[in-house]
C-alpha cells in the first residue's frame, strides 16, 4: 500500500491532520505546537497542499504516539472555530450518533 506521504495531496479548503492515539486508539489532532490534542479546536489548520504535506510528514514521523495519520477537511468559522468537514470526521469528533447502551426493558 502506498504511504500517505507518497500519495498526491489535493485539498480544496481548510484541512487538518488527524490520527488515532497508539495506546488507546483515541481520536487525536496534530496541533500548532508539533504535538497532538484530543481537542479539534487546538488543531493546526493548513490551506494548501505543501503545508498539508509538511504537517502530515511531521505527524507520520511520530509512529510511537499515533497511528494512521491522514488529512481531513474542516470548516473554519469566524476565522477561529474549527468544525469537521464531513460526517465521518463529525462522528470521530463527537462520538457515535446513537445511545451507547441497548435500551433497557
Amino acid at each position, binding site marked *: 500500500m502506498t504511504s500517505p506521504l507518497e500519495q498526491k495531496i489535493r485539498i480544496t479548503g481548510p484541512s487538518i491532520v488527524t490520527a488515532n492515539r497508539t495506546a*488507546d*486508539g483515541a481520536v487525536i489532532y496534530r496541533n500548532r505546537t508539533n504535538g497532538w490534542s484530543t481537542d479539534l479546536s487546538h488543531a493546526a489548520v493548513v490551506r494548501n497542499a505543501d503545508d498539508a504535506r509538511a504537517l502530515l510528514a511531521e505527524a507520520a514521523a511520530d*509512529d510511537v504516539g499515533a497511528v494512521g495519520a491522514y488529512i481531513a477537511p474542516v470548516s473554519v468559522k469566524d476565522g477561529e472555530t474549527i468544525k469537521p468537514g464531513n460526517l465521518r470526521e463529525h462522528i470521530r469528533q463527537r462520538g457515535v*450518533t446513537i445511545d*451507547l447502551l*441497548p435500551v433497557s*426493558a
Partner: protein
Amino acid sequence: MYAYDELDRTLLNERVAEFRDQVKRRLSGELTEDEFKMLRLQNGVYLQLHAYMFRVAIPYGTLSSKQLRRLAHIARKYDRGYGHFTTRQNIQYNWIKLAELPDALADLAEVGIHSMQTSGNNTRNVTSDQWAGVVPGEVEDPRIWSEILRQYTTLHPEFSFLPRKFKFAITASAHDRAAIKIHDIGLRLHRNAQGEVGFEVLVGGGLGRTPFIAKTINPFVHGRDLLSYVEAILRVYNRYGRRDNIYKARIKILVHELGSEKFAAEVDKEWRAMGETALTLDDGVIEEIRSRFTYPAYEKLPHMPEELKKAAADPLFERWRRNSVFTHKVQGYAIVTVSLKPVGAPPGDATAEQMDALADLADKYSFGEIRVGHEQNLALPHVPKRDLPALWKALDEIGLATPNVNLVSDIIACPGLDYCSLANARSIPIAQELTRRFANPDTAELIGRLHINISGCINACGHHHVGHIGILGVEKNGEEFYQITIGGRADENAELGMLIGPAVPFGEVADVIEDVVEAYLALRERPDELFVDTVKRLGVQPFKERVYATR
C-alpha cells in the same frame, strides 16, 4: 459443551504471552505500526474510528455460562459495559485500549476463549448452526466436524498467509441456519445411500463487492476425507488465487473465473495426488472429538406440562412462545431464541448486566449453555417446557423477551459509520428507526417472516445481499444514501437480492421500507405467502412501481 484439554490451554497461554510482548514492544516504539499491524490483526484487534476494536471468537456459537460471564467481565472492565454479537458468531468490543488488551486476552484464556484468527488473511472462526445438537432431524451434531476443522486450521502455517480471509460454515440440517452458501467453503452434512456420513462441499460463496452464491463441487465427501479434501481446496486456492489485487483475491473470484467444474476438477486432481495421507481421519480420532462434547442429562418430561397450559392464557406469553420457542429433539424441552433486537436498540448489542443475567438464566434453565446465531441473537438450547413461563418473565425483566425473532424488526446490521473505519454510511440509526416503525407486534406478525439486513458499505458485514430486504449505505457527494434490494435469502435456497431503484437519502429509508412492506401486503396471494416468495413470484417490478411512483 466441548471440553478443552491441556494442549488447548497451553496454546492459549503461550499466545497471550506472545501478544503481551508484542504490545509492549509496540508501545515502547520497538515495533512500528507497519510491523505490528499484522500481529494485532492475527489477534482480532482492529483500529476503528474512535478506538481499537477487539473481536473474540465463539467457535460454532457455543458458550458456557462461565464463558458468557467472562465476556460480560471484559465489557465491564476493559470496555464501556457492552458487547456486539456479529454475523459470524463473534463478539466485538468497540472501545478497548491497546495497553489493556493482553490482560483482557489473559482473562479470556482462563475460560478457553480467544481471538485467534478473527481477522487477517487466514481461516476464520468456523461457524455452524446455533441449534446444533438439539434440533430434530439433524444428521449429526455438526460441531464435532466444526471442532475438527477448528483444530486443523488453527495456526496452520499454510493457511495463515492466504491470498485473503477464508471462512467455513457447517450445517447438518435440511434448513440451513448457518448460511453455508455465502461462505468460502460451505459444508452440508448428510448421509449417502449406504448410510455413511459425509459432506456436500460448496465453494466460492461470499458477499462483499462481488457477491456469489457458493457452488457444489462435490456432492459427497466422506467424513474421514474432510480434512484432506479441504486441504486440496486450499492448495488450489493458494496456487491460483490472486494476490495482486485485494478485490479479486477471494476464492469466490477464482471459482467464478475458472468455472466451478474446472475448479472442482483441479481440486479432485490435487486430492487424488495426495492419496491416503495423515489427514485421513480414522474413526478413533473422530470418536475422540465426539466424546469431548458433553450433552445434558435430560429428564423424561411431558410434551405439554401443566405450567405451559396455564401460561397459555396470557396473550403476551403466548405471543413470545409462538415467536421465540422452537421444537427440541427431546420431548419436554425447547430451544429458546433470545432476541437482541429490542425496539430502538442497536442490533446484536448486549450489556454486561444482560450477559451476566442471561448466564444465570442459562444455569437455571438451560444446563448452563448459551448459543450465538449469525442473526445476532442468542439462544438457550435446552429449556424444559415447564420452565418457559418463568424464563419468559425473567428475560422480560432484563429486556430480552422481545417477540420479534425472524420478523421485520429482527434486523441484522453491521456497526456502520458510527464505529467502522471502512463504512460510508450509518447502519444502526436506520435499524433503530425501522424497529420503531414496526414496533407494533400485531403488525409484525401480520407481515410474517421478513429479514432486513443493513450494511454501511460494500464490504457487506450486515449481509445486505441476502436480506429479504437489503439496505446498503453508500456515499454520494458527502451525503449518506442507501440502495435497497429485495428477494435475497441466506438459507438453503440462498439468493442475492435485486435492486429496486435509485438510492434514497438517509431520511427516506424507513419510508421506502414501509412502502415495500405495504406493497408486499397488497401483492401477496395469501397471508402465509412469505415476502421472499412474493418477490420470487412477481419479480422486482411491481414493488418498484409502488415504491417509486410518488418519488
